[in-house]
Structures are given as C-alpha cells and as structure tokens.
C-alpha cells in the first residue's frame, strides 16, 4: 500500500486541478506516470525478497470459443443420488431457532433500550445506535429514525416498536416477490455473486427444489476459474440427481453457458441454472465477462436469462450496497438470494438494499442441508425481528 507522503502530495494537487478543469488532459496523461511510480513502490519490498514473476490479469478476454473442439463434458448421474459424495454436516438447529437468533440482535436490544422508558432524546440516541449496529446502513437507519422522531415525546416503548416494525415491514414487503412463473422451457437462471457468497450451494439447493417438484434440471459449471469449483457443482449434481455441463478449468465461461443451454434444449430440460465464478464487483474485466455471458444466454434462448440471481452473504455489511449497484450495472439482476442467515445480527442489510434498489428478494438460505432454501417472506422476517416476547 501507499505511503502517506504520496497521499499528502496528491491532495493539494487535486485541489488545484479541480480549480482548472480544462486541464484534465494533463491529469490523464500524468496519471500513468504517477501510477508507474506507485507500482514501483509497491513492488520494491517484494522484489528485494526475490524476483517475482509478473502477475497476469486473471482472465484475458477469451477468444471466440471454438465450439467443436472443446467438447463439453456432461455428467449424468446413473440413479438419483446413489450416495452422498461427501459427509453431511452435523445436523444444525432448525429454522425457527436460527431466525430467533437473528432477531435477538436487533430486538433483544430494542427491548433493552426501550424497556418501559418513554421516548426522549436519550432513548432516540440509543435507538440510533441500535439501528446502525444492525447493518441497516446510515440512510435507512436515518429514515427509520425520522419516523420515530415524528412520534410525540413521551410515546411508550410499544408504540415506538410498532412504528419501527411497520416501517421495516413496509420496506421489505415491497421486495417480497417469490420465484416468478417458469418461462421457457428451459427457464434459464444465471447466478452471480462475490467470492464465497454461496453461489454453488444455492444452485445445489435450487436444483434440488426444482427436481423435487418433478422438473428436469440442467446445471452449467460456469465457474471455470476457482480450483475445483466444477467438481463442487458436479458433487451437487450427483447429490440432487441432475445433469451438469462442464468445460475445462480455465475455459471460457460464456462457452460453458452456451453448451449448457444447447444441452438443456436438446434434452427438453425445464430449468437450466448457470453458475459463475465469484468476483468482487470492482473488478472491471470480470464484470464485463458477466455481461458477455448474459449476452450469450440471451442469444441462445429467447427472453433468457429469465432470472438473474444475485447471491448475497447475510454477513455482508454495507458493501452489499456496492455489490447490488455494480452487479446491476452489468446485468439486469432480477432477484436476490440471501445466504447464511443463521447467525446473529444478520440480514439487516436487506432492509437497506430494499430501500436503495428494490430488487425482489427471492430466497433465503438458512442452513447447510439440501432443503434449507426458503422463499423469502417479508412478514415472517419482520415478525422474527420484532417478536413481542424477544
């Protein structure tokens, strides 16, 4: 990382340049110069240790995929999941308990703050703190507080709680839109998200759900980057009993998507779910790659992808806002899946997201089992957050 002096130097310069906007060409031309120096600076300590090979950007724009010579492998399980490929994790507590834990964080403390007291400046202050610490985000917390402030001074705890509850419920109900009617066939679902958000697991659970309802599902192993990501999806395919179309590790994900759709059409599949490699939303070339995948899909099946699902880790803080914004810029994200909703103080970011983007929330992942993917229900979520006996 950079040294302080560099930043010190940039500030006055920036101020000056701002005053002379017509000189922006100068800035453009000078920027590489500054950056070269900065890169130099960053590399120096490493170079002293030992000469390092230059790191290549992760994905060079893939050449137009040669469909013929890159024959996709299709794994077809013989019988529906003869054995689980890996050990089932130890049984975790059930949904109700988990939701109970989620609400402990917000409402447990809400009780402590309000606990019989009347609304005054001090309570408001603590309330503010409470809302902030539930990952609601500053704008949403402020707007909720605004509602509370409108209440007469001296309002009791119950009415404050009711006000908050209504405000949150209102925001969440607007995004409660479960899975849309199936289009296609095939109904094409493209799954995106940052690294480690739970895309592959969500796909596995989603496939299990569709298969359980008697639909024919084809999965596309579009994460060709991470080591063993293809195998991870194949393991799920086996567990659920559906086909997995895969290419080579390091291959072009758009061509995997293409092959998946061809296979889905050929086999008359009802649902095709396409995995993608996790990517941080700030990585431009990788985000552009997503756009390309979406375009390939749109070309192959009319109206596809019918669902572009952004998978979001419930542990995520305010970065979720940035994720939603930047993923929406490259693809038309049509739904959210909130995963890992099993700890404390989680999922608050959903309220902020609903406020800022209004993207429909489809699913919540509440555990590690195959059947732990639920439809998002706003009232249930809010009830859990604001239960009276918390």
């Amino acid at each position, binding site marked *: 990382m950079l040294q302080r002096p560099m*930043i010190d130097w940039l500030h006055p310069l920036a101020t000056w340049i701002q005053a002379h906007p017509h000189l922006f060409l100068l800035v453009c031309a000078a920027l590489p110069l500054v950056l070269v120096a900065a890169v130099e600076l960053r590399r120096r300590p490493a170079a002293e240790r030992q000469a390092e090979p230059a790191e290549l950007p992760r994905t060079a724009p893939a050449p137009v995929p040669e469909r013929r010579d890159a024959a996709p492998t299709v794994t077809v399980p013989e019988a529906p999941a003869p054995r689980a490929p890996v050990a089932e994790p*130890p049984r975790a507590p059930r949904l109700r308990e988990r939701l109970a834990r989620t609400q402990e964080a917000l409402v447990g403390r809400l009780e402590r703050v309000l606990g019989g007291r009347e609304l005054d400046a001090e309570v408001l202050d603590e309330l503010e703190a409470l809302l902030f610490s539930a990952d609601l985000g500053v704008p949403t917390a402020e707007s909720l507080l605004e509602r509370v402030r409108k209440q007469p001074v001296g309002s009791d705890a119950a009415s404050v709680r009711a006000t908050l509850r209504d405000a949150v419920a209102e925001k969440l109900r607007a995004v409660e839109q479960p899975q849309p009617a199936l289009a296609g066939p095939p109904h094409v679902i493209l799954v995106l998200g*940052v690294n*480690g958000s739970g895309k592959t697991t969500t796909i596995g659970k989603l496939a299990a759900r569709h298969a359980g309802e008697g639909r024919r599902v084809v999965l596309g192993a579009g994460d060709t*980057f991470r080591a063993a990501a293809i195998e991870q999806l194949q393991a799920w395919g086996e567990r659920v009993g559906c086909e997995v179309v895969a290419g080579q590790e390091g291959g072009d994900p758009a061509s995997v998507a293409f092959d998946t759709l061809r296979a889905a059409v050929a086999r008359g599949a009802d649902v095709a779910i396409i995995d993608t490699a996790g990517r941080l*939303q700030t990585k431009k070339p990788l985000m552009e790659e997503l756009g390309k995948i979406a375009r390939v899909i749109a070309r192959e099946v009319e109206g596809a992808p019918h669902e572009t699902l952004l998978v979001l880790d419930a542990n995520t*803080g305010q970065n979720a806002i940035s994720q939603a914004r930047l993923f929406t810029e490259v693809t038309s994200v049509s739904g959210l899946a909130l995963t890992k909703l099993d*700890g404390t103080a989680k999922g608050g970011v959903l309220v902020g997201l609903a406020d800022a983007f209004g993207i429909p929330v489809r699913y919540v992942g509440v555990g590690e089992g195959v059947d732990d993917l639920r439809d998002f229900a706003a009232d249930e979520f809010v009830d859990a957050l604001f239960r009276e006996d918390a």
Partner: protein
Amino acid sequence: MLETLTQGFSAAREKLAGVRVLSEENIDGALRDVRMSLLEADVDLAVVRDFLGRVKERALGEKVQTRVSDASGRTVKATPGQHFIAICEQELAQLMGPVDASLARKRGAVSIMLVGLQGVGKTTVAAKLARHLQRQQRKPLLVAADVYRPAAVLQLQRLGESIEVPVQAGAEGDAPAAICAAAAERARREGFDAIVYDTAGRLAIDDALMTELDEINAAVEPANTLLVCDALMGRDAVNVAQAFAERLTLDGVVMTKLDGDARGGAALAVKAVTGVPIKFLGTGETVDRLEPFRPEGLASRILGMGDVVGLVQDFEAVVDEREAEQAEQDAERMLEGKLSLDDFLSQLKLIRRMGPLKEIFAKLPGMGGFADQVEGDELTKVESMVHSMTRQERGDPDLIDKSRAARIARGSGRKQKEVRDLVGRFLQMREMMGQLGSGGMLGKIPGMGRLAGAGGPELDPAALLGGGGGGGGARQGKRSTQQRRKKRKAARKARKKGRR
C-alpha cells in the same frame, strides 16, 4: 459508498477550515461527520464511540502544531483541520496495531490452523500461507480437513499442485482431527517444517463444528490459530470473532477480499474488541496475493484516503510488464518535455483500459468533484483527432498550422477550433511537464526521485505548473513569450530556493 466516506472526512476537514483553535464547539460537527463515515465503513458502534472519545480528547488537549516536519524532514504548514485528520489517522492505526506478522514456532516447525466462517476464503488463504512460508525457505505441508464442503479437498489439492506443496487429505469418512493428527505425524517423519491446517467453514454458533475444532486443536496443538475474516463483513464480524475467541486461543487474523471496495471496518473492530492482531491481508485471487499487515495502509483506506491504492491495483491489473516499462519511458520523455502526441495517445489508452474516466477520478483523493465535470466522450474525441494526424504532426505538433488543422478537423469530424484547442493544450501540458522534470516537484513523490532527479522546492503546484492558463488554443507567438516568462519565473524560484 466510497464517496460517502471520502466526503465524510472532507466534510470534517472543511468544517475545520479557517478554524484557528480546535475547540469543543467546532470539532463536534467534524466528529459527527467522522462518525458517519466510520459507521458506513462497518466499524462497530462501540468502537466508533470509543475512538471518537479519544480523538476528541487529544484534539482538545494537544497544542496544535502549525509547523510539523514530515517523513523526509521538510517543514510543512499544518492547519488545525489537517491536525485533526492526522489525529484520526493515528488513532485508527493505534486501534489496529501493533504490527506483528510473525508466526510462532513449536519444536522448530510453524504450524497454523485456519478457522473461520463459510466462504471467507480459508482454503485460498491456506495456499497463500504455504506460498508465503515457502518463500521463507520453509518446506510446508497443506492439510485438507474440510470434509463437508463438496470438492473442498480437491480445491486445496489443485492449489497445492500449483505451488508444488504436498496436500495431506484423509480417506472418506475420516474425522478431521484424525486427518490432522496423521498429517502432523507425516510432517515430523518427512521433515516438513511448516504445516497449514485448512478446516471446514462454520457458523460460529454451531456447537458440533466448534467441538470439531477443539478436537483438532487438542490433537495437533498448532503453534498459531488464525481467524480468517472477510473484509466485506458487516458488524456481525465482531460477534463471530468473539465466539471463536471464546472457544479457541486466537493468535491472529487474516483479512481477505481487500482487493474490492470493502473498507474492512469490521475487521478493525475485531482487533479492537478481541485484541487479536491482524497478521495478513489477502488482496487477490492468486496464491501470491498475501501481504503482511500494515496498519497505516488500512487506516488510510478506512479514512477514504487509500483509494489511490485501488487505483494502483487497477493499473496493475490492466498493464503487463512491457506496458509498464513503456509507460515509464513515456513518463521520462514527458519529464524531459519531449512527449509526442503518439506517447500521449498511448498514455490515454492505458487510462481508458482502467475503466470510465469518471470512476478513475473518483478514486483520486479530492478529485470527486472534478469527475463530474469530465465529459464521458472527451477522450474519444481527442483520440479521433490524434488519429487523423500524420506521423510527423504527432511527433512535432508545432507543425500544425491552420491548413493542417483544417484537414485534421475534416478527418476526425471535429471542428477546427477543437483541433487547435487540443494542440494548444497539449503544448502547454508538455511544457509544464518539462518544467516538472527539471527539478520540479517530482522529488516529492516517493519513488519518483529516480525519474526526476533529487530534491525539490516546497510544494506549490500552482506556481510550478504556471499561471492559470487560459482555455487553450494559444497562438504560437504568444505561446513562446509565455514560455520565456515562465522560464524566468522558474529560474527566479530556483535561485530563491538556493538561498534558503
């Protein structure tokens, strides 16, 4: 979000602009801005309160030094506003420090157990640590103890292969503790002096899996237990860390996914609340991207000043070695005042590859406002005009007279005035750059000394870069008088400096 943060601190700075003494009244507003910034960066509220309390105490208690010497020993003026920000930064670094990226040894071997929630990047960190240890001339062994997630073992094996580190995995149905014990045994037998245990991801509240960790811990007694923590995490990071710390003795934290726009404020709170030091940062998806932790770097990132880091990384991501060298050569030529329009074009192309101009500017500290004034297609226009020039003209833009300008305008579909403006601005810029190069302020930028020669006068960009400079299109004759005038000015300045 990025802007919000930077704005928070700029707002604080602005509120204190013109203030001569920091007082309770005038810093309250500033503190509120800082508070918002930190909350937006996912810093835990209790930590924020504590932090602000200390900043306030120091800001009011300390005598503001108006002249301070910076790293290179120069004396610079500091306003109370700057002083305030400096306190914030020091206190942030204080919260995150002390620096300690060392790894403990037991019986001569470095053993590390990695624990953390699902999807934070444990397996990748395991491989990165193995690589790190390898570089320290150790012989590491990786242990795949995540038997639950499909293909987790395979993932580690692939990563191990890529760095030529063997991976110990169990047979199907083996208990994780048994796999780890067997690996420890193998390490002793085969002379591995470093061992990294990759455990299953877990939900901190899950007792069964926590028990499993206890068992591994008891079986192999690792010298280091590191918690892998995701920089994207919200405030729950603190609860998670606490839950782990209650069950296990944590020796350090590895923070991952710092290559995005995450602020890592949550991780800051982890250090503050649990007292466990941050040891490493994961800054990329390849096995080499592991950095020993430096609190100052993260502090300026959280303060919203470290966006330059992101910019540098963007730059690194789009250029290869050859291009970087090319850019460096261009830069040198630029500083000698010999830049051609061709060089200029290639610089612009590099910049464009990094993304929209607007976003690039937004990452430069204090340039957010400037970004709004930049028209999106400005660069395209410039490029098309340069493309319509002959090679000769590009090498020596002075050649471009009225009739040449007319031809270029026709070729690029722009107006003649635009062509003249461009040429004028370019010449003006080249001249400034040349002045910079000859003993200008380049010496101020660390790492630039080599390019610019030694030393430099006190930072005064306005003076150095020449007066306001009208809207381009300067005519030749006029330009040369300007040039002479500027040269005289520069010389005066240099003499003045000599006396000092």
